[in-house]
């Protein structure tokens, strides 16, 4: 059993999810290699090589991979993947975009969002927004899997694994990058933060949403949002937590002015401790919260901030 993990990186930095995907990979096989595809990625390759359990890092560093388009990275993966039994990536927007393209070309199925490895060919994954958990056996010669990173602890650091540079002909003329706007990354990253403070429609406006940012700053937390808050323009799209946004499982999740729709719960109900602040005592969020506070959030948040300072 050997596993190829596609590393995810941004601005020359390995994303924290990759260490979690490696942890999942090690439960499927012991020959775990990491592919780093991009341009000017030598530091990313070094970071990947120092992840515990990694056998080797394959680096494909060339200008035509600078924007890491799915069509281009797919060509790279296709040249390497035939000697592996498993192909893994994080169930991030990067992994979700790339892996099914590979699967389509290989005419092989993909298992999305795996949360548990039962054996090298049997896995658990949530379906229906986490309303059910399916145990699925995959007997394909190459098992293509995206991993829900919040369900796996990251591997630690170890002595650097070997890495080799490879060059691949990339011919993608289908797509090109026009522009990218990075959300400003104040505070810890949503996917791996120890504490997340999320605001919903109850915040009422973008200006009021600053109360969430301020509390998050106080707790060294990442900021999250419900779909309603993102749709209303209170928060950026990449902060949406839920079935169709980001999945988080921090030590502490604080939901403020969020009702608790199943689609939102799907993204945060594995958090260790959940706090809900809502003025409606019948809000479904209270059914899953460890600590519920029925209160007007505009009273509660300033009090909470001063209690924590």
């Amino acid at each position, binding site marked *: 059993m050997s596993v190829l993990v596609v590393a995810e990186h941004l601005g020359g930095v390995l994303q924290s999810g990759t260490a979690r995907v490696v942890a999942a990979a090690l439960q499927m096989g012991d020959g775990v290699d990491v592919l780093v595809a991009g341009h000017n990625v030598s530091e990313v390759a070094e970071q990947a090589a120092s992840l515990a359990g990694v056998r080797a890092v394959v680096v494909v560093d060339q200008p035509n991979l600078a924007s890491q388009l799915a069509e281009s990275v797919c060509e790279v993966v296709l040249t390497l993947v035939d000697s592996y039994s498993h192909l893994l990536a994080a169930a991030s927007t990067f992994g979700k975009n790339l892996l099914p393209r590979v699967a*389509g*070309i290989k005419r092989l199925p993909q298992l999305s969002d795996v949360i548990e490895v039962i054996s090298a060919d049997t896995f658990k994954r949530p379906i229906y927004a986490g309303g059910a958990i399916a145990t699925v056996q995959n007997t394909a010669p190459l098992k293509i899997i995206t991993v829900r990173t919040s369900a796996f602890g990251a591997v630690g650091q170890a002595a650097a694994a070997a890495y080799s540079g490879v060059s691949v002909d990339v011919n993608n003329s289908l797509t090109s990058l026009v522009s990218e706007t990075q959300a400003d990354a104040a505070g810890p990253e949503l996917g791996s933060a120890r504490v997340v403070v999320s605001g919903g429609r109850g915040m009422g406006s973008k200006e009021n949403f600053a109360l969430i940012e301020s509390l998050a700053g106080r707790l060294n937390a990442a900021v999250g949002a419900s779909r309603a808050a993102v749709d209303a323009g209170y928060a950026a799209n990449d902060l949406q937590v839920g079935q169709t946004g980001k999945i988080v499982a921090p030590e502490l999740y604080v939901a403020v002015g969020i009702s608790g729709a199943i689609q939102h719960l799907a993204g945060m109900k594995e958090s260790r401790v959940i706090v809900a602040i809502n003025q409606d005592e019948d809000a479904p969020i209270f059914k899953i919260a460890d600590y519920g506070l029925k209160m007007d959030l505009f009273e509660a948040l300033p009090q909470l901030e001063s209690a924590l300072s």
Partner: protein
Amino acid sequence: MKILVGVKRVIDYNVQVRVRPDETDVDLSNTKMAMNPFCEIAVEEAVRLKEQGIASEIVVVSVGPKVVQEQLRLAMALGADRAIQVETEDAVDSLAVAEVFAELVAQEQPGLVLLGKQSIDSDNNQTGQMLAGMAGLGQATFASAINFKEGCIQVTREVDGGLQTLELTLPAVVTTDLRLNEPRHARLPDIMKSKKKPIDVRPLGDFNVTAQNYLKVLKVQAPAQRQAGEMVASVAELVDKLKNQAGVIA
């Protein structure tokens, strides 16, 4: 330009799914069904492109049993011109659906294929990307804006780090995210008129689905239930519990 749109029938998003007591599958008997919300967004986008004079024909496609005609009718009430039902009683996975779409792309020669980013039942988020790979087309997943240029499109995508805009040569595959548009509701006269629009029913067997079925669902279980916790009376009590009981803040 012709647009091909994928429409899937799924459980209504407001309904909490039940697992069968024998843990073989979920129980969808007597469950309210609807068009997958991301497909509604795909249909809406196609209709807007037709209203803008960019699209000339909208063909909606659903792979499934006869009942999917309900969702195809709805799509036609919303503005699609004709429908194709690829009929099968069996459950089909994203790979098989992608193969069907790849064949339809070859037959229909659309300028654009619009699919949802994700089915809210399987939560797969695969079909569009698989199709793009098979058909050798460019892909723009998680679209929140589409702009037509001369011979190409620019698509803004919702990605983890923020937003990304790509340019794609046509034909291409685009999958819709929540903020691409707000779907309209069907009007009664349009629902009546949609009954006259054609649905071409074709058995799945007419398609060359080559992929072997390697996946076997061994069990479907209810998720672990979270215990409801306690209500606290004040912010002071909350902070005290978080510090001294849960130990999550210092």
